[in-house]
């Protein structure tokens, strides 16, 4: 019998209320496959508050704790403290938060949790806007993207500012492990979940999460768009452990970023000069990542996590 590369158990069940083609739903499914049933999720206000289904049902085969949008990091510290006090061993304490709940309103609690080196996994599923409230801009929305609060109308041409680099912010805290994941590459995804699961200390997973209604694309294209995001260099896959950065997917020459941008209605207004500017930024970022990877080969290890 062939060896399966994706764990077989399902801890996310049918009956959930995600939109068709929802990458955050796929991210949860893959995450729980890798983590297993001894997992407690702390979920702030986000799409998953609703996807997990209302009282008294649940689509998830693990314990779930709801928390307000800005306090997931603190919730993880409280859960781990209680697990230690109660003698619960081998328990995965996991936050599952959106990009707004992480890199905007939840940044303080995330920073606190990382600085405390809380033994927990913080997952940010990044659909690049406040999607549960109907597509409003977040700090994680990319430059030029249309949202309901960064319109393409009059003098406004989508979001004027570039996307916040959450990984850089996280890495400044020297976490035990941080990685970027993309459900379009499930084997890389599961390997990183497994690596995070086996380590102790503060771990951070940044999951690329295309959103058909929010990004304006047809729901059967989620996986293809995910492939393009990584292969065009918009969302490179890498991991950082003990301060050492390793790129986990290098497909040779990057594809032109326009191939990715043209798949989504939120970028439909882009002009040739926009493509050019974004292409330059993406290439510069990719070169920088390659340089960091080379440099970190000889880097001193960060202090071990408590």
């Amino acid at each position, binding site marked *: 019998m062939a060896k399966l590369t994706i764990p077989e158990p399902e801890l996310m069940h049918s009956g959930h209320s995600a939109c068709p083609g929802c990458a955050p739903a796929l991210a949860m499914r893959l995450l729980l496959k890798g983590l297993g049933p001894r997992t407690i999720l702390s979920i702030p206000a986000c799409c998953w508050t609703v996807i997990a289904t*209302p009282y008294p049902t649940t689509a998830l085969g693990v*314990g779930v704790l709801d928390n307000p949008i800005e306090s997931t990091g603190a919730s993880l510290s409280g859960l781990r403290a209680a697990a230690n*006090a109660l003698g619960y061993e081998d328990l995965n304490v996991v936050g599952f938060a959106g990009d707004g709940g992480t890199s905007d309103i939840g940044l303080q609690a995330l920073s606190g949790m990382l600085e405390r080196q809380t033994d927990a996994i913080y997952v940010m599923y990044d659909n690049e806007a406040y999607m549960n409230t109907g597509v409003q801009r977040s700090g994680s929305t990319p430059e030029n993207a249309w949202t309901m609060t960064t319109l393409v109308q009059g003098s406004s041409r989508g979001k004027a500012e570039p996307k916040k680099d959450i990984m850089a912010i996280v890495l400044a805290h020297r976490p035990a492990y941080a990685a970027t994941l993309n459900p379009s590459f499930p084997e890389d995804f599961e390997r990183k979940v497994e690596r995070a699961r086996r380590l102790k200390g503060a771990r951070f997973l940044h999951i690329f999460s295309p959103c058909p209604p929010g990004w304006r694309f047809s729901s059967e294209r989620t996986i293809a768009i995910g492939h393009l995001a990584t292969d065009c260099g918009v969302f490179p896959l890498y991991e950082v452990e003990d301060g050492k950065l390793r790129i986990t997917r290098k497909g040779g020459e990057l594809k032109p970023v326009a191939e990715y941008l043209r798949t989504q209605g939120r970028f439909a207004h882009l002009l040739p000069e926009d493509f050019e500017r974004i292409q330059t930024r993406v290439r510069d970022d990719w070169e920088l990542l390659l340089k960091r990877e080379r440099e970190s080969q000889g880097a001193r290890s960060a202090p071990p996590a408590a």
Partner: protein
Amino acid sequence: MTGMERKVISGSYAQSYAVRLARVQVISAYPITPQTSIVEKLADFVARGTLRAQFVNVESEHSAMQAVVSAAALGARTYTASSSQGLLLMHELLHWASGMRAPIVMGVVNRAVSPPWCIGADHTDTMSQRDTGWIQFYAESNQEVLDTVLVAYRLAEDLAIRLPVMVSEDAFYLSHTVEPVDIPSQSEVDEFIPPRAARAVLIPGQALRVGSFTGTVEHVEFRHAVAEAMARVPAVLRTIEREYEGITGRSHGGPVPTYRADDADVVLMTMGTATTTARGVVDELRADGHKVGLAKLRLFRPFPAAEIQQLARSVGQLGVLDRSYTFGGLGPAATEVRSALYAAPRRPIVSSFLAGIGGRDITPHEIRRIFQVLEAGGSPDPRWVDLEMDREAPHHG
């Protein structure tokens, strides 16, 4: 009363000693004057190993409350402490704590709310949290602080209640003032507070959602369940305090203990440390033949309406002294008292007095003034006693 020990300690340390005796498992806090000495002492206990608790230093009060809410959701016994601005920052999570039926106990050192910055004793911070579903106690002495924290754990964790509890003490008058406090032995407290009997908590390996979300149909059922639990508090509290008295010999008299009020025509109701001053004035006035008495509001949430109605049956004038003000209304306790008495068969005149705002001393002179106003027929409008005193003898400096 075996193994009891008498220590001269502050109201803040009274909280810390009670927390240790209650074998709290998770503590999370953020520093704010004048709460800090509570959590510093707890950090000291944990460092010395005399308290086996997880101490989570967090980056804000909001996170402190979230950390204990989450720890309680996993079944741990928890404690935090705050004051003033910190308590205000917690406000959102206070609703989460009660809505999730998390039996957290929190020490609050009552301090004025900014601006202007002021760290004096004032009840505005806790009064602003009165609608969050927390049980609220106000203590008069360091002994009462310690005893009430222990009672609070039993009350919070009682399966008929399952609600968080605030034990409040006035800044500096209690938090930084030492008094002799009788500290029960660990075995006495172990007998009184068993390990937490957790219901509806997360268990590793089990699919359960705590917090959850509902449609518009079910939400009211959760809110009503909290209301029902609140309504059970006075009776459950009486049972628990009787048990505590049996073990330690001490009682603080239930939700609204009274002093020389049985045959009084005029009664003043106070909260916290103002009570001690008022008790002395009542004795003075009694010696001069005035039929005055005192009622101490220990329990503010749930509001002990039945006890207030009972008290009011024989009283002509009832004054309520508040150390905070509801802008555009009366003192918060006065508002509650008037509301509680509306349905009573016999209603005294209820006057609202505001004193000690921002930590001003509430002096015997001020209390005598209040009794004079009451004996002269009371006041329909709230009286800012501090300012009335200023007009007679202005402060200089």
